[in-house]
């Protein structure tokens, strides 16, 4: 049987101060990761509304990852602590509904962790690719 070469679509929300800068550093150091990852810049990971995550899945994303400063290092002192609770609750609920838990992730990447950013993205894309297309949380109206 031939393995279906599905190219996943990954939406990555990155906070401006740590993770977006970490992604820039990955670029500066020419650390490759799949082009499937598309980054959206937000001021802080706590700006990410669960509705944005669902929206991404609705529009055809196969995985959503949220990156922020390490706990304790938030530029706004406490934003990522709220992210941590919100996403823990949301991810657990998605899992409860039978959505594959590997499709969602929160990762803390500092501005100095270009290598971690690239490694995280490589790993996440690999896991999502293995799952194949997002069928359980798709909106057929939005499909090409």
């Amino acid at each position: 049987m031939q393995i279906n070469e599905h190219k996943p679509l990954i939406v990555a929300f990155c906070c401006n101060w740590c993770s977006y800068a970490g992604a820039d550093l990955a670029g500066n150091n020419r650390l490759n990761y799949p082009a499937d990852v598309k980054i959206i810049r937000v001021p802080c990971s706590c700006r990410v509304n669960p509705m944005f995550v669902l929206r991404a899945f609705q529009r055809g994303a196969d995985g959503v990852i949220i990156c922020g400063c390490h706990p304790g290092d938030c530029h706004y002192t406490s934003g990522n602590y709220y992210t941590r609770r919100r996403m823990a609750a949301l991810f657990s609920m998605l899992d409860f509904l039978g959505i594959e838990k590997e499709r969602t992730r929160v990762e803390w990447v500092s501005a100095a962790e270009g290598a971690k950013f690239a490694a995280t993205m490589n790993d996440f894309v690999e896991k999502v690719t293995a799952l194949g297309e997002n069928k359980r949380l798709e909106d057929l109206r939005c499909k090409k």
Partner: protein
Amino acid sequence: MQKITQNQLIDKAVSLLADGTVSAVLGWSKGEFGYDVTPKMFKTEKELRQDFVWNDFCGANFSKYLVSKTDRFDGKILVFLKPCDTYSFNQLLTEHRFDREKVYAVGIPCDGMVDVSKLKAVTGEGISEIKETSENILVSTIYEDKAIAVSFKDVLLERCINCKSKKHVAYDELMGDEGEIIDSARFDEVAKIEAMTPDERFAFWQNELSRCIRCNACRDACPACTCEKCVFDNPASGVENKAPANSFEEKMFHIIRAYHVAGRCTDCGECSRVCPQNIPLHLLNRKFIKDINEFYGEYQAGAEVGSRAPLVDYTTEDLEPGEVFDRRDIDA
């Protein structure tokens, strides 16, 4: 059958009206049939004597009505609160949703309320008359000659079977004896679903949620859903939709509905009670409550006024979103 009687409540309401403590009473009023009790504002003794009812069908939680009733009414309103209603009452106070000064709350005991759909499942449609005895409910229908006796216990609402508290957490005055907080088995059903495989869970919810007709009754009855403008009615929110377009919409609606009340939901069970499709919506809310209790420590919304809901709170040692799954894998 309720230990406290309809007449006791009417007498209480009449005397509070008479002595000027309150100028209106928010209560249950007779519907067309014995079981379709509806909320109503009573202003006179006559109205009360004529229409006020208190029976096994008075499940409606009146806390939410206070939001709209108090800011349109100058006097003080009497409201009767069952134990579970008092939690919603407190939660709304925490969120500054009504003026406590304008309300006179009387706590009343509750022996559990009847699930009309369970009752109809036994008796069939066409109910013409309902009589309550201490153990049974005698139902006459237009199709049967003889009244059918149904055991009260067999037709209780799910939320009453798993009642979490007979204790009132808010009132100005209490009628009857105070009860206690109950260590109920309300999370068992959630745990059962958690124990399923992802495929089974997906199938379970696909089946349940596909029945949704987007009537919005769950939202409209929910005492935590008191937004001035609901996101589902707001074209700018990005999630507005009025019909159950497809399976994504169903899931989206119910996830967001439950998420919006996560940490604020008192587990009053109104969503499931009013659902015309009998979708066990309370399970979604309970999943959030169970998670919050496990992740961040026991929290009961509405147990006290002014408490900080878990999702607008944090500690530096909280678990990581990825650990949510590890935990369960270990437990399983």
